[in-house]
């Protein structure tokens, strides 16, 4: 362990919550013994100074750069006697003097920049200079180390290593962690997190009756082994990979990338290690004697949008595709914003424009065109592509859910036999080539050595999984943490650069990152590790004290309450009504959608001009199989913050809006699910109260309290009386949906029960992971 690193993280652990993090409160310089460059100073300099005095050579003013010690300690260009920073001497440091001057002609940041520095920030900078103005590399570019577990007071609360780090921090702030959640709530939470579905009633009974010490662990193992685990994990990866069922521009024709999606599900279910998972996707075609499965995996890099607009300039769009791959690579695997260096040197991070095009060069050898044909001729898969036959599906690619005997074509990656040269594109413009560049990657992350890694896309993968790469493992464990807790240990899960957030638990992040890599990049093991922690298993109740002192739950002294995703809401409703068709994979499905949405905005050309809704089983598949036409994504999904799959996305919003309420109240599938569950319960020989109880249990996955059941049973009776006075209303209400109707004479009771069920579906608890 390097001494500087340990100092960094000790300071960090002690001060982060009290304001080391730039957005979690103001740090007071007087309260700090030691000012740390990474924690306290760089966030200020990066945000307010680096734009003109940072890495971007073209934008640099007065030839002064403050992001490196060499730059900051050098004599000023205009006055060799003056220095931006003089270690230990703020009064001799122009940086400090210009922050406090009353002369607006030399004040920094300049008044017309719309930027300013607060008094507290000035005090921090002063103290940092007094203490020697020590620079450090950006935290995320220092390879992680596995820290020894911190000592905690309440050892009893701890279940595994994660908890030491979390509890240590909670204890230093005077809060206490919540206790373990009750079995029913825990069961629902972990089922939703690992399979995306609520537990079956069979699992519910088994788990509640299992009083053994290992009951929870057995449950976790069982959930991880279910094929629905792969589906759940695939959703996030489909966002990362910008998966869609259409090409994405203008006429927006159909494409068939779904076999790639089936592979993703398969890869998660088979628990492919993360290094294999990313290697196959980045460069499966370049492995020795690649298998068809390895070729298929490379579809990852062909999921970007492709134009079919007549009259486009071919090269403009070809460059666009290579750009998309480059940006996706950096965001998906490194959580960096390479795209900022597309037109100029990155203004905050050490990524030059040349670095950008060196990375770009890896993806610039694909034998492809900007435009393949007009919409009427356009293929479902543009070259390079592979053809997958029924024979292959039967024998080798058995995870592909191909419905018919015609072979399916999928776009994949391939390198040309000839080498296309890559140039820096001046201002990022396709027809303004500058200096010629060879392959490479930003040295500030990890120097690229082609004698070690090779000289094609496979080298990208090797470089990523190199032990010395500081980002790959951190970025992935952080995103899995985000999937489970709603917020990453680094909140800006798509930006580990200097403008991103600092980690809330740096030592935990590093411990997990190293542990993940050391244990063979084992994804199921990582997921299990997190859900086995006491941190994960806490109740999600929020005390007033927690709400006041830690409203965003940065400290993790409670489990989060998070609204389900768009897919999650759909899956919950389908599963609890019994409508869910558990088939895995295959072409995406066109679900109920209000009439005319595609038609109102289409040019009228192509296979997707009109919406042809599916019927039967196709209506009741999981949310991840919903057909995504990029230019008009399914509105019900967008309302719940789903990605429109335009570009790589690593984090979804989580809003709470009236349009969500309208959808949950009035959307046909929501109503149909309530109707079908009502009919099923009506067929059971039980009292009305028992039916209400069972409906509640089925949806909430817990037994309702007496109050809840009373309230709903009374509501049932009121509605029954109500419908009795207007039986035609009952008939209309229960007529919803294409799913077959049970023959039940007492339509009034069906309608009343359906109304009760609909009410349960609309509660905050039903659609919230609690």
């Amino acid at each position, binding site marked *: 362990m390097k001494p500087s690193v340990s100092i960094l993280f000790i300071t960090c652990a002690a001060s982060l919550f009290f304001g080391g993090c730039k*957005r979690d409160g103001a740090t007071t310089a007087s309260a700090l013994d030691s000012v740390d460059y990474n924690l306290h100073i760089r966030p200020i300099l990066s945000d307010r100074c680096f734009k003109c005095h940072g890495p971007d050579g073209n934008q640099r003013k007065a030839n002064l750069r403050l992001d490196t010690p060499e730059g900051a300690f050098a004599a000023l260009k205009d006055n060799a006697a003056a220095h931006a920073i003089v270690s230990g001497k703020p009064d001799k440091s122009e940086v400090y003097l210009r922050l406090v001057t009353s002369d607006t002609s030399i004040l920094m940041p300049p008044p017309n920049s*719309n*930027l*300013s520095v607060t008094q507290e920030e000035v005090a921090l900078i002063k103290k940092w200079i007094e203490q020697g103005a020590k620079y450090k590399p950006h935290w995320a570019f220092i390879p992680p180390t596995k820290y020894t577990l911190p000592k905690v007071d309440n050892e009893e609360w701890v279940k595994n290593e994660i908890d030491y780090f979390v509890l240590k921090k909670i204890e230093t702030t005077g809060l206490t962690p919540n206790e373990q959640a009750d079995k029913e709530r825990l069961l629902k939470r972990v089922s939703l997190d690992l399979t995306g579905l609520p537990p079956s009633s069979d699992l519910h009974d088994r788990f509640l009756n299992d009083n053994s010490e290992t009951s929870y662990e057995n449950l976790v193992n069982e959930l991880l082994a279910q094929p629905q685990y792969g589906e759940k994990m695939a959703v996030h990866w489909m966002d990362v990979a910008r998966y869609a069922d259409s090409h994405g521009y*203008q*006429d927006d024709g159909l494409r068939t990338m779904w076999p790639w999606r089936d592979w993703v599900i398969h890869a998660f279910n088979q628990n492919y290690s993360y290094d294999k998972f990313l290697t196959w996707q980045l460069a499966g075609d370049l492995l020795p004697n690649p298998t068809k499965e390895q070729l298929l995996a490379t579809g990852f890099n062909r999921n970007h949008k492709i134009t079919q*607009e*007549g*009259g*486009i*300039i071919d090269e403009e769009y070809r460059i666009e595709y290579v750009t998309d791959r480059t940006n996706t690579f950096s965001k998906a695997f490194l959580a960096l*914003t390479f795209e*900022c260096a597309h037109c100029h040197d990155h203004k905050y991070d050490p990524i030059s424009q040349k670095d950008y095009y060196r990375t770009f060069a890896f993806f610039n050898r694909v034998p492809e065109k900007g435009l393949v044909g007009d919409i009427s001729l356009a293929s479902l898969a543009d070259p390079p592509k592979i053809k997958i036959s029924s024979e292959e599906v039967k024998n080798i690619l058995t995870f592909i859910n191909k419905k018919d005997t015609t072979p399916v074509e999928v776009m994949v990656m391939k390198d040309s036999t000839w080498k296309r040269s890559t140039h820096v594109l001046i201002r990022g413009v396709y027809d303004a080539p500058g200096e010629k560049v060879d392959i490479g990657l930003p040295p500030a992350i990890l120097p690229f050595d082609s004698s070690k890694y090779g000289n094609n896309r496979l080298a990208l993968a090797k470089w990523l999984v190199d032990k010395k790469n500081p980002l790959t493992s951190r970025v992935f464990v952080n995103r899995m943490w985000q999937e489970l807790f709603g917020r990453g240990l680094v909140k*800006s899960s798509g930006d580990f*650069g200097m*403008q*991103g957030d600092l980690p809330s638990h740096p030592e935990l992040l590093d411990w997990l990152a190293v542990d993940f890599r050391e244990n063979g990049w084992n994804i199921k093991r990582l997921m299990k590790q997190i859900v086995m922690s006491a941190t994960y298993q806490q109740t999600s*109740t*929020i005390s007033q004290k927690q*709400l006041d002192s830690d409203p965003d739950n940065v400290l993790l002294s409670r489990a989060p*309450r998070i609204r389900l995703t768009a897919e999650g809401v759909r899956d919950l409703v389908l599963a609890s009504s019994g409508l869910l068709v558990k088939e895995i994979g295959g072409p995406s499905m066109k679900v109920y959608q*209000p009439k*005319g949405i595609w038609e*109102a*905005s*289409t*040019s009228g050309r192509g296979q997707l001009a009109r919406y042809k809704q599916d019927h039967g089983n196709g209506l009741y598949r999981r949310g991840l199989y919903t057909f995504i036409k*990029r*230019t*008009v994504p399914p*509105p019900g999904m*967008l309302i719940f913050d789903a990605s*429109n799959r*335009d570009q790589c996305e690593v984090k979804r*919003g989580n*809003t*709470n*809006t*009236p*349009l969500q*309420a*309208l*959808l949950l*109240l*009035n959307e046909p599938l929501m109503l149909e699910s309530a109707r079908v569950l009502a009919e099923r319960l009506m067929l059971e020989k039980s009292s009305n109260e028992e039916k209400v109880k069972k409906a509640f249990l089925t949806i909430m996955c817990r037994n309702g309290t007496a109050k*809840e059941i009373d*309230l*709903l049973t009374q509501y049932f009776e009121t509605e029954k009386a109500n419908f009795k006075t207007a039986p035609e*209303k009952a008939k209309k209400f229960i*007529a*919803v949906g294409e799913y077959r109707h049970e023959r039940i004479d007492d339509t009034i009771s069906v309608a009343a029960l359906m*109304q009760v069920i609909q*009410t*349960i579906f*609309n*509660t*905050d*608890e039903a659609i*919230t992971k*609690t």
Partner: protein
Amino acid sequence: MSKEFTDHRFHLTRRHFLGKLSLGLGSAALGSLLIPGLFSKSETTTSSLGLPHFAPKAKRIIFLHQNGAPSQLESFDYKPLLNKMAGQDLPASVRMGQRLTGMTAGQSKFPLVGSYFKFNQYGKSGAWVSELFPNIAKVADEICFIKSMHTEAINHDPALTFIQTGAQQGNRPSMGSWLSYGLGSENKNLPAFCVLLSRGRGNGQGVYSKLWNNGFLDSVHQGVQLSSSEERVLYLKDPEGRDRADRRNMLDKLAELNDLNYKEFGDPEVQARVQQYEMAYRMQTAVPELTDLTKEPDSTVKMYGSDCLVPGTYAANCLLARKLSEAGVRFIQLYHQGWDQHGNLVGEMPLQAQDTDRATAALIMDLKQRGLLDETLVIWGTEFGRTNFCQGDLSKENYGRDHHPRSFTMWMAGGGVKAGTTYGETDEFGYNILRDPVHVNDFHATVLHLMGLNHEQLTYKHLGRYYRLTDVAGKVIPGLIA
């Protein structure tokens, strides 16, 4: 200060933000069927950012986007030289090697072609308008024409995405989303940003819901598409067999259940959800009443044309836009498809004009009569212009024109713009800009300025960067502002 309010935005946690929002929304009587002032604007505009930056000239925008690119040469940019030189090749000295689309790059000749339609001067301002737009001609003195618009993209998708979001590629927030984010809504019961679609009879290009996307902003800033069907907003209608009283009853039960949950968990998000349901309930009354055009007086129908009673027409959408705007909707985006005349321009353009001319002019007159034109900015625009040379076969009776990003015409009326003027000029070939160019970024900067917003300060920090509608460029054009 940009920094301050951006930070302020960030310090508002999602919970705080929503809490704040719901406080604003929840001030109307909960659960009341009779909501006083249902359509009236609230006294203070609600912005989470403490904006505008300075006194606005306009409060609301109606953007009439003519999708596909109507030819400037047959509408507002009169170029008699093209008629004189019809059939002659575009001089290389004019074209200067500028790029062409893949549709005309292969043509061996670029024969110039003048407008088939006659031009005349109108109003005190003497604006040139073609015979295709007699009604717009009548309101010429309300209009500020910009003859010198130019853009970067040469194809529909990127050009359309550029004028709507300030970027050709990428998942950026739409103009309306930026205004919703910056200025909030004036009406508690309606979204701040509404979208209306219609289709003409000419060759059309699609529109995409990504154009009214919120990008990286919260999804509350997403444009809400009002459809032409009976159900104007998605999922607005109560289910069959259920009426308003039933729904009210249900929401009361739901609130009770949620309250039990809140008591157990103490999560303010539960209360926020209850508020969202109440807002939804109010929208269910407010939207259908406001969007019902059947009760409009005859004088209004006469002004907009009888088409305005046919849902989904451009005329109906113009009238609807006026009503939404009057009720306080911040930004209303219309798209009218059918303006992509690569061929048969002489056949198609009159049909497109017939469908839009009258209602466009009526919207301006209607706003004026109501005293609203001063505070409402009406924009007539498109994604790029069309070439001065013919695409495909040229005959005396017909021709087509390809995409031309180097120069095109847009116009604005109302809210703080210099009425009865023309800004900028193209050369006599109608090809290059002669003076006062207005780039799309400049146009956006100017529109934000009219709304009281500094385009360099309306920012949102996303993945390490402060994003703006105008990206890294754009300047306010004083010559457009009264």
